[in-house]
């Protein structure tokens, strides 16, 4: 009973965040040290609005990002790229997934033994989305994205192909 209380107390803050569309992305620093490249972005509230204000009106990409960001409360990203396969513990995703309660809905699952595994979860709020979580686990890359606030997935996906990156439709994707 006592152990159960301690576990509940430890999970309580994370559960509270998950209610708001945010999850606690707890990843050990040692993972970034092992990665050849890592991205750690934490933008919330005032900082997010400030960053959005400095996006250019003249640049179509930046204008589109600003339109999407206007409805958001926070963006949190962790992404790690490794030189070799199996450099990270795949249970990291399972641990983070535990924070997602019953009000989170999995809308996309892509599973592969050799390529990337992608899971997309949303937390609906009426007709809109209160939060979005993406887990992408590839042999040499681990990415976790948490977007808090009302986001249009089609608009978000349409950003791909900009930033100088070719659209997936033009890229040859092999399936096993």
């Amino acid at each position: 009973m006592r152990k159960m209380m301690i576990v509940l107390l430890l999970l309580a803050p994370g559960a509270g965040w998950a209610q708001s569309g945010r999850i606690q992305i707890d990843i050990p620093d040692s993972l970034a040290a092992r990665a050849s490249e890592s991205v750690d972005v934490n933008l919330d509230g005032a900082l997010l609005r400030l960053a959005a204000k400095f996006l250019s009106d003249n640049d179509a990409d930046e204008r589109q990002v600003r339109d999407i960001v206007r409805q958001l409360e926070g963006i949190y990203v962790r992404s790690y790229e490794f030189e070799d396969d199996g450099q990270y513990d795949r249970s990291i995703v399972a641990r983070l997934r535990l924070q997602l309660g019953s009000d989170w809905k999995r809308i996309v699952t892509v599973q592969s033994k050799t390529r990337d595994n992608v899971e997309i979860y949303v937390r609906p709020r009426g007709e809109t989305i209160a939060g979005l979580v993406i887990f992408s686990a590839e042999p040499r890359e681990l990415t976790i994205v948490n977007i808090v606030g009302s986001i249009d997935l089609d608009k978000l996906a349409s950003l791909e192909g900009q930033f100088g990156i070719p659209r997936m439709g033009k890229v040859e994707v092999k399936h096993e």
Partner: protein
Amino acid sequence: MNIESELKEVLRRTDPPSGFGDRVMRRVRADFSRPAKAGPRTRYRALAAAALIAIALGGWGVHATLRARSDLMVAMRIASQKVAQAQHQVNRR
């Protein structure tokens, strides 16, 4: 009167007039409480220090904003890539 008795007369210990100690202490306190007058050099130094602090704070603010803007673009790029990638794979299957 010889020199010895003259010296004794001059160096004879006498008590200060009444209230002398109080007047001295009052003057000391007054001197300490009066603000020191800043010379032109001190004023220029203070202005230069204030300007340096303002420039440093402004520079930090600009740096933080540019960093946040860059982080935002990176975050949106990664998020959009992952969503589009998943959509594409789902459509292909």
